């Protein structure tokens, strides 16, 4: 109980720091890939501080409260994960959080924001099956949906779930809104959807959004870590390395691909989900009667 409370508090405090650092690394590496020097590593924090101190300009004032809800529900999601409760429940609360982001974008009735919001829904539809199947995969391997049981198994879950792992990495790109799946938002405002879902967010509201994104990234990468971790402490080190490698991979993909059409994204994501995750889980169901890891 005590360790659970400590890990939840640690998550709430450390997640934005780690998320911000990852963002800084992302910018630095991206810049180097584009032969730029890039901003300092701590630039995301400077940006965030600046955003919090700016005058709040909004199209609709209700946006602030919706974004705040988005932030709080995202924190709850992560806290639930680190409290070791049911993984599926975490994912469901995560989807509620995502709904608030959607509301925050479309409440404005601004053209670019609304189109970004609609596309965000399609992104959710594209990645949701793989997320659920990931939870199912963990359940089949460890016999429980509880995060605490999944994280401390005898072996690393990835041994049984290579397909699910790959599918999860695939949808991670969609979830992080990185190219080629930056459908609902774009990296630069001078593109056809401007900034998509974040078009009308500024100052404190954008700060809330950025902060939530950091929390979300840490949450998603923590779920990735569940594939690797087992009882031995070494596996946690391995998990950190895997996370960094995957994160680098995401940056690489982001920098060398262009945005694709949303319909292609759904088709691709679902195909990957069915082929990799679906067949993996099917085989698991057929072969192993009772795996209790």
């Amino acid at each position, binding site marked *: 109980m005590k360790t659970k409370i400590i890990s939840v508090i640690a998550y709430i405090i450390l997640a934005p720091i780690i998320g911000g650092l990852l963002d800084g690394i992302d910018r630095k590496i991206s810049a180097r890939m584009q032969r730029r020097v890039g901003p300092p590593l701590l630039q995301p924090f400077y940006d965030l501080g600046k955003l919090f101190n700016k005058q709040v300009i*909004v199209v609709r004032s209700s946006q602030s409260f919706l974004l705040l809800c988005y932030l709080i529900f995202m924190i709850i999601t992560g806290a639930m994960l680190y409290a070791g409760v049911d993984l599926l429940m975490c994912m*469901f609360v995560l989807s509620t959080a995502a709904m608030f982001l959607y509301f925050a974008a479309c409440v404005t009735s601004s053209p*670019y924001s609304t189109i970004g919001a609609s596309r965000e829904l399609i992104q959710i539809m594209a990645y949701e099956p793989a997320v659920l199947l990931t939870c199912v995969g963990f359940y089949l391997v460890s016999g429980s949906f509880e995060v605490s049981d999944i994280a401390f198994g005898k072996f690393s879950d990835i041994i049984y779930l290579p397909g699910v792992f790959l599918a999860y990495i695939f949808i991670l790109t969609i979830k992080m809104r990185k190219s080629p799946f930056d459908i609902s938002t774009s990296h630069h405002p001078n593109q056809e959807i401007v900034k998509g879902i974040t078009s009308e967010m500024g100052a404190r509201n954008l700060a809330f959004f950025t902060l939530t994104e950091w929390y979300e990234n840490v949450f998603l990468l923590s779920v990735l870590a569940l594939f690797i971790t087992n009882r031995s402490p070494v596996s946690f080190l391995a998990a950190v390395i895997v996370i960094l490698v995957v994160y680098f991979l995401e940056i690489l993909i982001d920098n060398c691909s262009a945005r694709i059409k949303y319909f292609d994204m759904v088709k691709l994501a679902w195909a990957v989900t069915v082929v990799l995750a679906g067949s993996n889980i099917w085989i698991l169901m057929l072969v192993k009667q009772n795996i209790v890891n």
Partner: protein
Amino acid sequence: MLVMPEIPFLICFPFLTALLLFFTKNDKLKALISYLGAILVICAAGILWFDWLKGGYEPIFLYQNTEIVDHIIFVAEIVIMVLITFLCFKYKKRIICLLSIIPTIIIAFAEQININPTEKLEHIYIDRLAMLMCTIISLVGSLIIIYAVGYMSGYHMHHKEVKDRSNYFLALLFVFMGSMFGFVLSSSLIWLYFFWECTSVCSFLLIGYTRSEEAVTNSFRALWMNLLGGTALAIGIFYFAFFERTLSFRSFIALGALGDVYAILPVALMAFAALTKSAQLPFSTWLLGAMVAPTPSSALLHSATMVKAGIYVLLRLSPAMSGNITGMMISLVGGFTFFVASFMAVAQSDAKRVLAMSTVSNLGLMVACAGVGRPETVWAGAFLMIFHAVSKSLLFLDVGATENSIHSRDIEDMHGILFFLPLLAMFMFIGIAGMFLAPFGMLISKWAALRAAVDEKNIILLMFIVFGSATTSLYWSKWMGKIISHPHAPAEFKDITRPNEFVSLVLHAVMMIALCVLFPFVSKVFVDPMLVEMFGMSGQVLSQGVLYILVVIICFVFTIPLLSIFYSHKIQTNRKLSYMGGINEGDNCFFTDSMGEPKRLWLSNYYFANKIGIRKIMMPCQFVSAGILLGMFCIILGAIL
């Protein structure tokens, strides 16, 4: 011997009220009778609960000697047959009357079969499942009737072309309710068949209420599909009675669960009949066509009665379908329907059509759960049924009220109704949230279904659930976004919802939220013992602890937005125009077009109608599901011959 007068009262009283209403022309009197009737039905259901609690939740058997009633029912069956035949001839759909004449003859023969004299046939049987159904029917059904009184007078003010027969309409709603009570309480197969036909005919008459050409076509489509199910049921009953010499529904299920050779085909036929009634593919089209009728009838068909009758039968049959080929057939068809109907719902912009497709889709999930036939899946199925009944009824009634106010039921026209019809929008929001959002009932039941599918190692059902729920959340969230967006233009609509409609909506919303909060309690006290009754073992999928956590999250969902509103009011904000690439016209409603003229900004959702619309994929899906059914029936026939 127990008598329990409230049971014949529950079944007969709605019929009598209907008769009274049928001859009442006065508007005030009509309303009074309807209110009284609805309230008395709820009271009778309450007394039934009380009596049943007094008996310690034990199953109760009643009415062994019912010779006179049997004769009355036989006569009534003949009357129904004559009525259908007459209407079929009147509207030149002569073939359809065969589907009524043949099963009536079959049932008449079935009644002549010498029943095993040692077995005493109880005609009424009360257990937890029956009580659950009674509660849903009495509460939701009565609320719909209360709503209908106000709605119908508004309806006839707007639709001058339709002849005002609202007394007939209300009477039909009562008949419907009475037949549903009869259906869920009777334990004699003959009675079951009779009430089954009653609901079919009622829905047929309700759909044809406006007597427009479209209504007549659709009502006959509903009729033949449901009568086809009824025919299958009649054949099943005859076959079973002929070989087993009993007409008891309970021994029917018990023998089915034991895998008795003579019960295999009847169980399959009854399950097939249930598929037609709950509008599963390939029979989904009748429920879509049912929307031509005034909204209260849609609400009744979709939530408390009709489609739930099919689900009720399947839940009852689930022990007899556990792990056999019938169960596989049912769960396959159900899962498939859940998946493709949610696709079709994405492509709809008419609110009632979205609701209809989502009903078909959600029923698919319930059917699949019942088909798997394990306590865990039935637990999920029962909760899906409870939550679906309440939130779907709320949504239908709300869309009806909205339609009266804005004269459209297109979701695109509901852009920003939160700002011009705040109360209706709020109820709509609650209803939709209840259908798919995280800690609310439907999603939890879906979660339970997912777990049960995994535990059963049923990969096909698992995939259907996983992909189907992704599309499900797409069409609901799309709609929610429309509700809260700022309006395109200052709207001049007035909320003309009548007080009685409003009362009904409020009660629905209260019921919805109460159910969500009392979820763990309902599961522990009622649904879990129900499974013990049916299967001899408990089947709660989600542990009680998880359910309590969910209740806490529900409280969060309500309090966090409130706190955030409180907080964000304190932030000093500066309102600016939205970004339109520098071509704003001074407000958020207009932009400058390429001719330099102001043009109204119009925002719309994605629908993909040309890719996944009903027209595009309904036919292929019907073929696929019909293929599944045919194939499975061949296997079943092959197994018993």
